[in-house]
């Protein structure tokens, strides 16, 4: 069974929208220019700052995983522009349905990163209060969130609201049935939803060419959903493209699909070994398109970033990373009986019984060793002799 290993082939190569080239030059784009004409110098610097901080946080988290403080970490290095550009295009009322890799979006949303890392430390399954940040908790089941976003958007439309929902998804996710069904519903009900697909070229070991023989953005029109392909390493272009889609959603234009063409510079997660499936030349090629480097060059050439501003940004990144480290290390292990919390809003008697049985069981251990936060195994009273 053969399939193309890398870029999707087939008909309909698409125009890739770009505003800043890999060399840091500003280029014009008829559709997108108007969506970023309002940005002043500070706003442009802020986009850069976000990306620097996010990369720093990502490196810190990877280090925390290597040091055994996190069980796992999904790095986003290379995808900073896609995450910052899209997240900064949203209003507070817009609701985000992320995957597990949207840590940059989490940061932009203002949710505490320390809570986000709890999911990877194994202290909780929830990063933050979805209602507080208008952002759902990380989705691991590939593609499931696209349906949730569509439904949320249908709800907004039913209530006559001007807000939108956005679903983040990967290139691999576009193969899932859920994603196709989401696009059908989104089109059927003209839901104000954005499908924001980060094509980072890999789904664990599988190249995007295995998932699709046409550009991913080329699929959406088949469902009646307008789409754009944008340079996902160009933060300005991603911001503009997402504003385009958001404008459509807010003005009754219905769903949109954005393919942000980017690259996962690191492994899929810290448990993965990319040397098994991808070559070094590919990495070098994408290294030259780095989203941070190009924005920096653009800002410096335009006289919008001096040494002092850069030092301040770098200091902020260090500060955020240090705070994250401290918060992560200090995250307490959850209390044993919290196992039984929140299974239901209205608990039933069978679960109550199991809770009481386990409480009594824990209490039956010696007081010195019965601390609920300690492992049962650790204080085993009867072990193999």
């Amino acid at each position, binding site marked *: 069974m053969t399939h193309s290993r890398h870029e999707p082939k087939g008909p309909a190569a698409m125009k890739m929208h770009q505003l800043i080239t890999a060399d840091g030059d500003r280029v014009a784009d008829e559709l997108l220019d108007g969506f970023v004409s309002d940005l002043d110098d500070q706003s442009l610097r802020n986009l850069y700052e976000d990306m620097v901080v996010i990369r720093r946080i990502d490196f810190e988290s990877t280090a925390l995983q290597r040091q055994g403080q996190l069980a796992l970490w999904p790095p986003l290095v290379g995808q900073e522009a896609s995450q910052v550009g899209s997240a900064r295009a949203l209003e507070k009322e817009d609701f985000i349905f992320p995957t597990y890799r949207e840590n940059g979006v989490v940061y932009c949303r203002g949710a505490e990163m320390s809570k986000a890392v709890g999911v990877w430390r194994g202290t909780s399954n929830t990063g933050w209060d979805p209602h507080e940040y208008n952002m759902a908790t990380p989705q691991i089941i590939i593609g499931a969130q696209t349906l949730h976003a569509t439904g949320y958007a249908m709800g907004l439309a039913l209530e006559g609201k001007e807000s939108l929902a956005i679903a983040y998804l990967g290139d691999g996710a576009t193969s899932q049935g859920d994603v196709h069904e989401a696009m059908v519903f989104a089109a059927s009900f003209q839901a104000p939803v954005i499908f924001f697909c980060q094509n980072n070229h890999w*789904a*664990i070991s599988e190249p995007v060419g295995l998932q699709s023989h046409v550009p991913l953005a080329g699929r959406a029109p088949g469902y009646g959903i307008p789409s754009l392909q944008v340079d996902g390493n160009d933060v300005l272009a991603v911001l503009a493209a997402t504003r385009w889609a958001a404008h459509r959603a807010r003005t009754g234009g219905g769903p949109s699909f954005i393919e942000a063409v980017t690259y996962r510079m690191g492994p899929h997660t810290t448990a993965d070994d990319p040397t098994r499936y991808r070559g070094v030349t590919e990495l070098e090629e994408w290294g030259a398109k780095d989203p941070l480097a190009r924005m920096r060059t653009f800002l410096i050439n335009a006289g919008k970033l001096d040494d002092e501003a850069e030092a301040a940004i770098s200091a902020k990144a260090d500060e955020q990373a240090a705070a994250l480290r401290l918060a992560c290390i200090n995250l307490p292990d959850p209390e044993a009986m919290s196992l039984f919390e929140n299974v239901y809003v209205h608990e039933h008697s069978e679960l109550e019984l199991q809770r009481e049985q386990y409480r*009594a069981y824990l209490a*039956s251990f010696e007081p010195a060793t019965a601390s609920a936060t300690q492992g049962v195994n650790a204080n085993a009273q009867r072990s193999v002799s």
Partner: protein
Amino acid sequence: MSNLTLTQAINAGLRRALEDDPKVVLLGEDIGTLGGVFRVTDGLMKDFGSHRVIDTPLAESAIIGTAVGLAYRGFRPVCEIQFDGFIYPGFDQIVSQVAKLHARTQGMVRMPMTIRVPFGGGIGSPEHHSESPEAYFVHTSGLRVISPSNPQDAYTMLRQAIASDDPVLYFEPKRRYHVKGEVDLEGDLTAAPAMGSARIVEAGTDVTLVSYGPLVKTAVDAARAAAGEGISIEVIDLRSLSPVDYATVQESVQRTGRLVITHEAARTLGIGAELAASITERCFNYLESAPVRVTGFDIPYPPSKLEKHHLPDLDRILDGVDRALGRPNSHTGLEY
């Protein structure tokens, strides 16, 4: 005899099946170049080609659903579901199609398909990576559901599953993936214990302790600890969850008079519930006490820092044994 880990034994079983029968094909996410996220299929694409070891797009319903079509065409597909929690997108194809086609077509269509699922907890994973979904499939007629607990069984049972003309769900105890054991790679399949048979792992006289997959080792540890206190536990590795080898369990319970069942899956309507009911029906007059279940709680799988509380361990199993023996047991004061 070769000394192999459980993953290597499965790999050897797949290799042997691919060699023996050109109609065997493997399908799954990342099973090719990467060799699977657990490296179970390591080297197979290299040796058998990408038309036999097929890296599929990321879609479980499609993996199972296209395997149905391949089976119609006379292939014997072996599907890999990457983790337990990702079988649900393929659930409809398994329970509505795979399980029923033989009956629906009055025996004219066979589904000789194996669906491999790494399952269970205890490895510190995030959500959806530690589930024990076996009961859903046991509840569906037309499927066979098996789970090996050691490298030899992993090898033999996988070969039997692939050779079976009925669809088989093959649940791999992922926390035991690195356990080593002697494996006879040349053994005659017809001489091996049948796929549906249970095995007595440790003989004993006071209590019958039944388990399968990841908890068999824990059950054996519990039996050895109990032996130190003068309690003799007979440990049975179920091996097959559908059908269950009731003859073996029944014979044991008739001798011991007491039954404890342990599994990671939630208690309600789990394998333990079925076993307790069926053995009570069969052995009521022999039972000295009510069967006891030591299982995961009826909760969504907890974050990994709490899984040690959720998963039955040696102490909880022994507490269950105490209850079966009618001892003051864990001093909980509760009667059940």
